[in-house]
């Protein structure tokens, strides 16, 4: 591959990273904390390519021994992420990923740390991860008879309807699902992957080994909402 082509690819790839980082779309793929690193990385790539381009323009035909590539074609692969980011812009993971696994990632998470008291508000907003952890591991039954609000997307499997989120610890490749089974209403009108706020109460003792620690959630009200910017739970 020619040196000029390599430099153009580097500029495009650096530009793709900058685009992701500056428009906020990076949140579909990685955690928020990576943003400054993406900016630095994208900028570094562009600078390295521009320095090489400027030197080539100034230096004319002067070449560096030991830097020639011969027949190496591997740099062409760099075009794939560029295309993926600019043309396809893949969405955040959703129902398809949740249905690839039966595990419910929140189990055991903070089991040994004890549970803080819930706020005394009438409706308590909870992350699905905490909701699952509390129903599965909090023996004091702190959620029983409490009305909670969960935010997540709709997932269907084997005739059941779930409200789910994915948790990531580094990037979308390590995503693990957390979910609760919704009952008490007709959810047929909600398309799969639709984001909702579901208000209701847990069925006490429903998250056991037999249900793979997926709690049952009796929903009194479910409202479709717009997809949030960061779809993952931390």
């Amino acid at each position, binding site marked *: 591959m020619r040196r000029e082509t390599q430099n153009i690819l580097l500029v495009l790839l650096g530009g793709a*990273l900058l685009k992701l980082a500056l428009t906020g779309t990076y949140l579909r793929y990685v955690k928020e904390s990576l943003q400054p690193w993406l900016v630095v990385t994208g900028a570094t790539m562009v600078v390295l390519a521009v320095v090489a381009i400027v030197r080539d323009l100034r230096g004319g035909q002067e070449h560096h021994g030991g830097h020639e590539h011969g027949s190496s074609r591997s740099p062409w692969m760099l075009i794939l992420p560029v295309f993926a980011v600019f043309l396809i812009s893949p969405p955040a993971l959703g129902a*398809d990923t949740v249905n690839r696994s039966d595990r419910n990632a929140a189990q055991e998470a903070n089991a040994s740390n004890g549970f803080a008291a819930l706020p005394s508000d009438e409706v308590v907003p909870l992350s699905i991860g905490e909701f699952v952890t509390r129903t599965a591991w909090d023996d004091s039954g702190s959620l029983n008879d409490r009305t909670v609000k969960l935010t997540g997307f709709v997932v269907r499997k084997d005739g059941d309807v779930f409200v789910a989120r994915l948790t990531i610890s580094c990037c979308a490749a390590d995503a693990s699902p957390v979910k609760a089974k919704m009952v008490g209403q007709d959810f047929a009108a909600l398309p799969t992957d639709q984001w909702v706020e579901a208000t209701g109460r847990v069925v006490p003792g429903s998250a056991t080994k037999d249900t793979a620690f997926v709690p049952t959630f009796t929903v009194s009200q479910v409202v479709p909402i717009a997809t949030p910017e960061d779809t993952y739970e931390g």
Partner: protein
Amino acid sequence: MLLVLALVLQDWLVGVLNVPVLRTASTVFVAVCVQALPFLVLGVLISGAIAAFIPASALRRALPKKTALAVPVAGVAGVALPGCECASVPVSRRLMQQGVPPAVALTFLLAAPAVNPIVLVSTAVAFPNAPMMVPARFVGALLTAVVMGWLWTRFGKSEWIAERALRRLPDNDGTSRWVVFAETARHDLVDAGGFLVLGGVFAAAFNVLVPQAWLETLGGQVVLAIVVLSLLAVVLALCSEADAFVAASMSALPLLPRLVFLVVGPAVDVKLIALQAGAFGKSFAARFAPATFVVAIASALAAGAVFL
């Protein structure tokens, strides 16, 4: 021209990718690339800095003369590179080009991604109920790296390594050090970047093709669990800073197979094999990766026997 074609094809592409499996795979692919590129850039910048500012003679003086002694030194030196495996491939290739014996550079390659403080802290955070996981992982990974270094000293042949990986840079030929720095970093980035993307393609494919349900059926069968988790570590190609959280979420399994997962992953995975084939040649990767796989499992079991 290429871009015009791409724009014309965009609608068609987006349509094809509207299948859930492909959509998931493309998201995972971009995620792997986006997550790994900062570390790869860190690695090529270090590699450029070594080429430009550290004379080969200084490196040789810093290491013990006997390779057998230099190998463990290189393993412990891995603590100082706070990144994941993508950063360590260009750095160790640069070390080889600066005249560091291959066995020593390869030990550094294997140790750096697994024994640095960031990885150890994230392991501790992921396993709050099993603090011994941290020393077990540290020892298992270090043992893997050192044993592989010694094996290479004893059995390795330098002709397995592609000639381009061993070619010395010409000593200071009058070009400014900053030019050497920028040129080396750019060259390594273009070179390794392509292979990283290739590894990302494989990781994304396996991510959607390997049925996660395997894990739930393993239960108490420890031997089977060790085999399956070591293979999973290879095909999933998780970043060494994230794999502890994935291992922690497999709570149906005993700790030992999960330790194997954590020791094998940073040493051998599809992304790393692609990077190694790019940096050191196919005939190197075809020998080094399987040997590392076996040594890593054995080291993890040994460390597990002591600590868990």
